[in-house]
């Protein structure tokens, strides 16, 4: 995949196929710790323990479970290329939690890419599912919770393409702001201590 946000879209689709009704996505970028981590947690039916062990092998998995075939293997390869790794564990309510880590500065690390397009695509295709998105870039945080949006705009608001399109633009602007402040040297300096505290 050309962008990490496409990997995110792919893994979240897995969770949706597994029958989840709430999915939490967390992206954390820390230049101080030189780390980018992605965590996706769903409350779907989960992956049986014996299959969990075989996940890293694309051939074994693609034959036993169609649901987690190539997608996770691609993400694992992408993470390992960048001195990171992929961990799959049992998530909330017996679902699945996928964590991928990357060396932030690694030359092979794909850009995060258009996260707003990924979120808009998820909202558009799955109005019945709730999403909680958190993005931390060098200590600055952005969050989005579709349950709050539905409360504010009405239960059926996220079935309207116009609302989702407009929402996507807002998310894009917010994330650009968040990540460009993080890019500035003074912000990096300021947050350097913070990230080391963790």
């Amino acid at each position: 995949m050309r962008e990490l946000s496409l990997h995110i879209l792919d893994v979240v689709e897995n969770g949706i196929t597994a029958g989840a009704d709430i999915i939490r996505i967390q992206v954390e970028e820390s230049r101080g710790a030189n780390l980018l981590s992605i965590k996706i947690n769903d409350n779907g039916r989960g992956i049986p323990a014996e299959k969990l062990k075989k996940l890293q092998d694309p051939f074994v998995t693609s034959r036993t479970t169609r649901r987690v075939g190539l997608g996770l293997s691609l993400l694992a390869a992408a993470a390992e290329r960048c001195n990171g790794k992929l961990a799959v564990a049992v998530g909330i309510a017996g679902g699945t939690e996928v964590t991928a880590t990357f060396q932030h500065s690694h030359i092979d690390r794909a850009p995060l890419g258009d996260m707003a397009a990924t979120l808009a695509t998820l909202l558009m295709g799955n109005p019945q599912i709730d999403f909680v998105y958190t993005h931390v870039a060098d200590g600055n945080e952005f969050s989005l919770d579709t349950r709050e949006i539905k409360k504010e705009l009405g239960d059926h608001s996220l079935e309207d393409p116009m609302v989702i399109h407009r929402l996507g633009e807002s998310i894009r602007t917010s994330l650009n702001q968040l990540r460009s402040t993080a890019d500035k040297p003074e912000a990096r300096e300021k947050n350097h201590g913070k990230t080391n505290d963790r």
Partner: protein
Amino acid sequence: MAKLTIDDLKKIKEETAKSTSIRDGEANIKITVHMGTCGIAAGARAVMNALMEEMAEADRQDIRIVTSGCMGMCSSEPNVTVESKEAEPIVYQKMDANRMRQVFKRHVLLGEIQSDFALAKM
């Protein structure tokens, strides 16, 4: 902590107030964007976002968009299936944003099947 503020949401609500009507009527047309790993890697997200823009512009209450997994035709991804009540479902292959816009404007809105892009009738 930055959030999509209530103000942002209120603005969106105002801007889209005209169109936000409950979609309780039956869908006459269903558009499926196939979002398996293969579809996503081949560009299904860009197809979906183009479709979303077209939908926002057309403002038709009887068209439904859904996503689905891989349908086993990975080499022709991104695939999009258009189903309507009157005609048989058409699977379009190797879609991109522009092809999606054309299929939407011609097939979905006007009923003209775009056979150049079609993979199969189902």
